[in-house]
């Protein structure tokens, strides 16, 4: 397999020397090395067949897998109750409502008597104010 690719005889001679050197190096190989390699690699797992898919096959397999997953997941999805609002949001609303209610209650509780009194006074003054002024009638009758 080693061919001379040079026309220079001196370089051809070097190549020849290198070939002899390669033979000399190879001759130092311990006997039975190949057998030992075979024995050592026999204990490894048997090669598995390599399956390779084209891009089209990969896309088809991917779509088929997605469709199968969707069909399997559909009954589970359908039987699921309507989703509750987010617990966090719910709690937040509750907290706001409670706070407002407490504020209103507290406000009403603290001001209820005063307000009632004020309302009563307003009503009385309104009543008083609402009573018709008949003095002019008395005056005109007098005339």
């Amino acid at each position: 397999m080693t061919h001379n690719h040079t026309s220079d005889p001196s370089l051809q001679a070097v190549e020849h020397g290198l070939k002899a050197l390669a033979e000399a190096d190879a001759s130092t190989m311990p006997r039975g090395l190949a057998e030992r390699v075979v024995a050592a690699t026999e204990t490894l797992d048997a090669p598995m067949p390599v399956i390779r898919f084209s891009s089209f096959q990969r896309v088809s397999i991917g779509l088929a897998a997605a469709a199968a997953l969707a069909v399997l997941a559909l009954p589970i999805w359908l039987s699921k109750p309507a989703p509750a609002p987010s617990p966090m949001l719910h709690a937040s609303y509750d907290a706001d409502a409670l706070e407002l209610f407490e504020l209103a209650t507290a406000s009403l509780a603290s001001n209820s008597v005063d307000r009632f009194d004020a309302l009563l006074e307003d009503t009385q003054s309104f009543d008083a104010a609402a009573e018709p002024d008949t003095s002019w009638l008395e005056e005109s009758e007098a005339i």
Partner: protein
Amino acid sequence: MGQPERESDPRALGAQAERDGPAQWESAAVEPRIVRAALAGDQDAWSELVHAYTRRLYALAYSRLRQVDLAEEVVQSVFATVANKVSTGGYAEQGQFEAWLFRIAVNRIRDQIRIARRSKRIDSPEALREAQAEPAATADPDSELLVSLKAGLGELSDKDREIIELRHHGQMSFKQIASMLDEPVGTLLARHHRALAKLRDMLSPSEQATADSAARPAAPNQRLQTP
């Protein structure tokens, strides 16, 4: 596990090459159907695949690490990674198995070099002197050439050395190396050519003559001579 037998004497190389024959060293391309069968889990095909690549991977690792145990560890680790990746679907065969295998090997070798450099086991002056002193005692011109080439490889940049070793030890084609290292083939060829020239310039005139005579094919009348 006992100490495995080794043939590290450069004099034995010729005899070893004769015994092994070209079929074992010259990388016979593993048939795609064997690769596919091995990666699909066929144990016989896997065994064939491991036997086909072990020597080349080992030579590549040994050339760089210069230690038998480290090179063996790299080979074991490479095949364990391959088996693991394949079993988990991390690799799909598209005709690039060899390049992938050697890329893993190169990464493992780089890891080992990083670890070893931290502990100064490789490329240290002591290690280099040891490597040079070992075969020099034989006073064989071929051995001296190999030692010089070995030392020359150590002088190359990591990138150039990797190209040379992938080409000559890994027995990979330039196209495979270019794909592996993510470089244009033209750039790779130029780098390989420059690296060869650097190695040539590092050889002494006598070593160059030895290499030259070894590279030159025998004359027809010499080949026809009978003992």
